């Protein structure tokens, strides 16, 4: 075995101090296996050493929260003895190296986090950021990632119902692939990952262990550089078929009382799963590594402990339940083996070939990993962009056409038509609208689901941007008629050793926390991905928010599309006309500048609660939140979704036309209501302190923007649908 030295420790991504600390904990020099274990457990990916103290500031409680951060996924009560279990996770680096497999295994990993807790996954979402479309790698990455997400989720048979895709040059060298999984379980059958019961068998089930992804966790924690190419052999390959078998077998076993604890093997494989289980249970574990089902010959303890082979689970069973479990696993054609026992020693003891090859105390490795309070520096202040100083290079309708046809706003049909969004036959609203709506099988309820973030806002003002992402998720859920419940999140940032990046991270968390508190919208799970940076160039900070809401009665969900003529369109919320950091400025004027729009959480809440009230009264025929691209884009999206046109008129009192039509002021919705409801609506609005303003009416097959001009829906549809397929029809390597 390799002699352990500081050089070997550094190769494992450990600092000199961390190496010291390991020796103090053990009272001796670690062997290579032990060093490997420490290195993955103390990697940024597993230990959250840079983010931990800041994450603690996020609000995580509400009466409906059953389990917040700390377990494999968050759990919220959805009534009738049922819970929703969900989490979002990144697979950025692997997807950049091998887009198909990277994205596929990302989907698989997050599904396991959800079904390991006893939930049947019912929906998948994803949030993707790619580099500039003109970057030579972008097309290949888009093709591979989209195919990989579909290839995995479609095979397992969980509908992919929503997501977002963004393009920006800051992602040229580091794409973001975040996947979210949502499951449903019985509240009294939620499974946790605390190993308990001395003597209980520790059981391995699923795919055999190969040499896949050894050091994936440390790779995810290291900044990219041109030499990363050499790390390629660590790419894991997913087997969605095996995942499906594992899912069904686990759920079948969970129906009985065999399981004491269960934990997926994710990053850092057997190491993190066994340490986390023992740590949560305050116990010890003894593993006999000879019993681990191996795919290749001659695998060493180091490889067995650090492999990131996919589709594997670790369970602690009630003693005597082994045979029941074995029967279910063999029915589902899965390899399973008792590989160890729970002990009371508080230590992880690893045996191989008859000898003890590793012996490490659990608590210092899992619980007491280093925590850093890295220096943080705020972003330099930026001036607001006064609407009057924005020269309009083209007319309103031409600007609208450019926005609708732009990579940022055009239809994502090319991507989502590769995702099975209708399997399980409960998808009421799939990709393409606001939040997706998925019926809770066999009930009157439905879950509303969304993922949101506006990295260009976070880039300029992390606090505002963090708050905005949470608000937008809340707004999207509200727009379909749901009561927002809670969020998961995935924080994608650059190198935390740079104070600027740390400032972005702490700022975003601060903004998120404020919004979550103000909206009663707590964080129940999440993931942090740092070092999204290549040769010093970091991604736009992207705190992706995955929101979950509940509709008590799915038949009352609200559609985004306008289908009927003769309805009045009313804008809820104020619109001074904020063009800073807007898409209009970026896409139409070619300017990336200015402060992002202010976020007032109390206004957000008031406006959203008001809209939900209108929905409860049955007044709302269609609703859409106003987001990227502003009011006119929101209106056009409603028209494209429903097929009915509208006429809207620019008010006399606006700052500028562009500010009114394309400003990205927050906390806004457009609702379509019957003519006769308008007076009441306006009255109720003013009584509630909510700004509401009629802005037009529906009808025809044109979009009429007085006094600027008109354009046929069909033309806008062609523009919206055109960009993606045209772009992707460029050349590419085969992706599957």
């Amino acid at each position, binding site marked *: 075995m390799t002699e352990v030295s500081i050089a070997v420790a550094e190769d494992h991504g450990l600092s000199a101090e961390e190496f010291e600390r390991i020796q103090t904990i053990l009272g001796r020099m670690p062997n290579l296996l032990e060093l490997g274990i420490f290195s993955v457990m103390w990697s940024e990916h597993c230990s959250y050493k840079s983010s931990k103290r800041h994450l603690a500031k996020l609000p995580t409680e509400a009466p409906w929260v059953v389990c917040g951060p700390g377990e494999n996924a968050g759990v919220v009560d959805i009534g009738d003895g049922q819970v929703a279990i969900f989490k979002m996770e990144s697979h950025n680096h692997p997807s950049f*190296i*091998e887009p*198909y*497999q990277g994205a596929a295994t990302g989907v698989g990993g997050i599904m396991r986090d959800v079904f390991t807790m006893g939930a049947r996954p019912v929906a998948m979402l994803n949030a993707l950021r790619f580099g500039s479309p003109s970057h030579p790698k972008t097309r290949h990455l888009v093709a591979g990632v989209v195919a990989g997400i579909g290839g995995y989720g479609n095979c397992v048979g969980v509908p992919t119902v929503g997501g977002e895709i963004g393009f920006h040059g800051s992602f040229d060298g580091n794409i973001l692939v975040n996947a979210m999984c949502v499951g449903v379980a019985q509240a009294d059958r939620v499974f946790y990952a605390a190993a308990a019961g001395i003597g209980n068998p520790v059981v391995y089930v699923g*795919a055999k262990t*190969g*040499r*896949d992804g050894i050091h994936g966790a440390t790779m995810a924690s290291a900044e990219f550089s041109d030499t990363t190419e050499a790390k*390629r*052999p660590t*790419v*894991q*390959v*997913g*087997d969605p*078929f*095996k995942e499906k078998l594992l899912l069904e077998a686990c759920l079948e076993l969970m129906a009985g009382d065999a399981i004491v604890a269960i934990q997926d093997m994710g990053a850092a494989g057997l190491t993190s799963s066994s340490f986390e289980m023992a740590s949560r249970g305050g116990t010890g574990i003894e593993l006999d590594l000879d019993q681990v089902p191996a*795919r*290749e010959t001659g695998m060493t303890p180091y490889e067995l402990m650090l492999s990131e*082979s996919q589709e594997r689970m670790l369970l602690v069973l009630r003693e005597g339940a082994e045979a029941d479990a074995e029967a279910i696993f063999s029915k589902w*054609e899965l390899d399973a083996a008792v590989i160890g026992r729970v002990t009371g020693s508080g230590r992880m003891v690893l045996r191989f070939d008859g000898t003890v090859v590793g012996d490490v105390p659990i608590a210092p490795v899992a619980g007491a990993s280093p925590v850093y309070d890295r220096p943080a520096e705020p972003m330099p202040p930026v001036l607001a962009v006064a609407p009057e100083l924005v020269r309009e290079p083209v007319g309103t309708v031409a600007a609208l056409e450019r926005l609708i046809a732009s990579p940022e706003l055009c239809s994502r049909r090319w991507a989502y038509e590769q995702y099975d969004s209708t399997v399980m036959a409960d998808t009421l609203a799939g990709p393409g609208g606001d939040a997706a709506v998925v019926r809770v099988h066999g009930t009157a309820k439905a879950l509303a689901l969304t993922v949101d973030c506006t990295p260009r806002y976070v880039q300029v003002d992390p606090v505002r941007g963090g708050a905005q992402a949470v608000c937008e998720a809340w707004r999207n859920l509200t727009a379909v008629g749901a009561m927002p419940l809670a969020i998961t999140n995935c924080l994608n940032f650059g190198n935390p050793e740079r104070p600027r990046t740390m400032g972005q991270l702490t700022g975003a968390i601060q903004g998120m926390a404020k919004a979550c508190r103000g909206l009663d919208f707590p964080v129940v799970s999440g993931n942090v991905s740092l070092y999204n940076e290549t040769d010093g160039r970091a991604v736009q900070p992207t705190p992706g928010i995955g929101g979950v809401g509940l509709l008590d009665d799915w038949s009352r969900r609200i559609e985004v599309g306008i289908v009927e003529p003769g309805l009045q369109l009313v804008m809820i919320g104020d619109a001074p006309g904020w063009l800073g950091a807007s898409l209009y400025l970026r896409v139409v004027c070619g300017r990336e500048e200015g402060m992002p729009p202010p976020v007032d959480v109390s206004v957000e809440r008031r406006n959203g609660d008001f809209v939900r009230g209108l929905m409860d009264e049955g007044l709302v025929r269609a609703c859409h939140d106003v987001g990227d691209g502003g009011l006119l884009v929101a209106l056009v999206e409603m028209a494209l979704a429903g097929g009915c046109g509208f006429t809207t008129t620019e008010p006399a009192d606006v700052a500028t036309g562009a500010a009114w039509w394309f400003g990205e002021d927050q906390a806004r919705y457009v609702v379509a209501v019957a003519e006769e409801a308008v007076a009441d609506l306006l009255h109720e609005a003013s009584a509630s302190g909510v700004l509401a303003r009629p802005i037009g009416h529906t009808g025809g097959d044109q979009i009429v923007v007085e006094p600027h001009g008109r354009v046929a829906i069909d033309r806008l549809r062609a523009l919206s649908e055109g960009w993606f397929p045209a772009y992707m029809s460029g050349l590419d*390597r*085969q992706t599957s």
Partner: protein
Amino acid sequence: MKVRIVVSLRDGVLDPAAETIRRSLGALGFDGVGAVTQRRVFEVEIDGRDEAAALEEARAMADRLLANPVIETFVVEPVG
């Protein structure tokens, strides 16, 4: 002339399909089935090149399109 490009998974990379095929051969009653590996083979007609140039061209095709270098390797050979 015609060139053959044989694309195989790199050593150690999981091939779930091959594993599933192996199992089902067993279930169909074929016993004594050991390892199963799968490869993809392309045969490409390349005009107006001598053998060396055609093989070079085929290698470039594999590199750029037919094989995924992250998980696959390839060999090229003349056909016939």
